[in-house]
């Protein structure tokens, strides 16, 4: 059940009506939202609802045991280790089993072993990376005493809540559980921002991302060696715009849908391509993942507390694992390695740049950073390492464009321009909209969706981050 579909629209209208009709009893309201979330998840594959429930129960149990251990440090550590191990086993089995078995088989063949290994085909549950990371952060926060143990209902709803379930943002217990514990309210400001985010997300996904994918990006990345330099360059820029418009659209809609139900999700994107350094980029792109990696991985690896060498090691390992989080593929590892290496290089540059040298001008920083990100996206999008190499090699091969049209070029320029709008444009607009009568807002909203619907291609592809 994809957000930009009529099926989801009808589902959400029913959930909205049910949730607010139960506002007198917060507990029944949460039960209704939990059942709705399981129904939403079951629309992909009902079997994995059991996994979602089991994951919630395990994390709830681990946190309870950590809290019950009181000041007994070893017991707390043991339950923490058990909680993290269970999450990693679940994630590892569903996400990485096939990849590691294939690598093992290749290694054994290299060593002269001729027989094939019996490798199971494991179906990847949608959103597993998101809900296991959410569960782990909850257990670690309880261990670190940054969050108290939540009730079973709150914990399972935290992990299952449908707006963020399959592609984030990664909402932490310390952010959402206090909201779940009190009766939700909705202000006109929240609703106006939520509605604008939903319509804005719909436009980015259904028009820009879909058009770029179907008209340019998919065809070029499917066979890079068959395309000209201009097509390859256009597809690289097009994919940078597509993945931003696709992923940020999901986040916008998730934040907006949660707001209409009375809950506040955190920021996840903030005009990332205007970043003047890669460090700045990661403060603006997938903020809930980058802050997760910082708080639970980078800090645990030593962070900046043990000198420059350790810091560079922590940065590189964090980004390598961040790459692997996206999927079991060497291309994701290379993507993470590019980001980790450049982050470490930026840090070393800041440390050792001769003081008499001028600082890099801001626009140059923006352009260089964007192109480092673009290089990473080529590996991220390509089906294999060989395809990525063919893509990059083809950039110097010459030839004219054959796929790029004025509309596609316009969409690339438009998508890039979003990053240079005044900050918080949606929120500024919402501050005006909230004072407008509902009839006018409803008419405007309805006609905007109508226009978007008339522009979108038939059908809608799943969000890119659903596969993670």
């Amino acid at each position, binding site marked *: 059940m994809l957000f930009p579909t*009529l099926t989801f629209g009808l589902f959400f209208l029913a959930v909205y009506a049910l949730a607010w009709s139960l506002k007198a009893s917060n507990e029944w309201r949460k039960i209704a939202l939990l059942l709705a979330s399981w129904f939403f998840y079951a629309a992909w594959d009902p079997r994995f609802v059991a996994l979602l429930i089991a994951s919630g129960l395990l994390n709830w149990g681990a946190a309870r045991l950590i809290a019950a251990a009181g000041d007994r440090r070893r017991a707390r550590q043991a339950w923490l280790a058990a909680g993290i191990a269970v999450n990693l086993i679940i994630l590892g089995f569903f996400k990485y089993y096939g990849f590691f078995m294939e690598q093992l088989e290749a290694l054994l063949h290299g060593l002269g072993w001729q027989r094939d290994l019996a490798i199971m085909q494991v179906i990847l549950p949608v959103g597993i990376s998101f809900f296991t990371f959410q569960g782990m952060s909850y257990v670690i926060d309880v261990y670190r005493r940054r969050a108290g143990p939540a009730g079973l209902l709150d914990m399972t709803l935290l992990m299952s809540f449908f707006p963020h379930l399959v592609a984030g943002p990664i909402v932490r217990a310390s952010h959402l559980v206090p909201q779940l514990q009190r009766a939700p309210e909705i202000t006109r400001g929240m609703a*106006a921002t939520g509605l604008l985010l939903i319509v804005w997300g719909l436009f980015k996904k259904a028009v820009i991302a879909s058009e770029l994918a179907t008209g340019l990006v998919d065809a070029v990345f499917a066979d890079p060696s068959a395309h000209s330099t201009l097509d390859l360059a256009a597809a690289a820029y097009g994919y940078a715009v597509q993945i931003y418009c696709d992923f940020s659209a999901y986040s916008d809609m998730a934040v907006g849908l949660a707001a209409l139900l009375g809950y506040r*999700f*955190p920021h996840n994107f903030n005009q990332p391509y205007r970043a003047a350094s890669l460090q700045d980029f990661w403060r603006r792109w997938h903020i809930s993942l980058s802050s997760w990696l910082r708080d639970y991985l980078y800090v645990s690896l030593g962070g900046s507390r043990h000198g420059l060498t350790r810091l560079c090691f922590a940065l590189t390992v964090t980004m390598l694992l961040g790459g692997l989080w996206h999927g079991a593929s060497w291309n994701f590892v290379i993507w993470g390695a590019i980001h980790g290496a450049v982050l470490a290089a930026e840090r070393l540059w800041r440390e050792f740049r001769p003081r008499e040298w001028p600082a890099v001008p801001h626009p140059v920083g923006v352009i260089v950073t964007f192109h480092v990100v673009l290089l990473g996206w080529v590996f991220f999008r390509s089906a294999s390492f060989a395809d990525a190499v063919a893509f990059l090699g083809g950039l110097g091969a010459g030839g004219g464009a054959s796929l790029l049209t004025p509309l596609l070029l316009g969409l690339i320029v438009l998508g890039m321009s979003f990053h240079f709008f005044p900050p918080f444009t949606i929120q500024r607009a919402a501050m005006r909209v909230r004072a407008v009568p509902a009839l006018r807002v409803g008419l405007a909203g309805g006609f905007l969706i*109508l226009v978007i619907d008339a522009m979108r291609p038939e059908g809608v592809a799943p969000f890119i981050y659903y596969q993670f």
Partner: protein
Amino acid sequence: MATAANRNMVGPSPEPAGIADLLADYASPVDLPDPPEPLPGGLRWTTEVIVVAALVLALFNAHALRGWAYRLDTNAATVRLVSAAEGWYEATGRFGLNRPVEAVHAGWQSLKDRRFGEEAPRPPP
């Protein structure tokens, strides 16, 4: 990798000039400074907006409803749904309500068909 967006909420806006800094300090993108005058009835306002938008879409976007009904798995219930959606599409069509979407779609399609220079338009898929 810290972000200003993860800081806690602060109070109402002092001056519109500092609005960007203020908005950056909120924990969620849906948090706004308090309005100068209270705006009560958030739930009622929201529900009215959703109902009006849904009515606009039901009246002017019948082709989407029809397309959705046709894509459902076929069974006795969906056959009735397809028939109802088809009837609704014809009814709204009689009043010319389908024309705005058709006009926007045609305009968008002509934009898609444009090519640089003297390239011929791509054949329809």
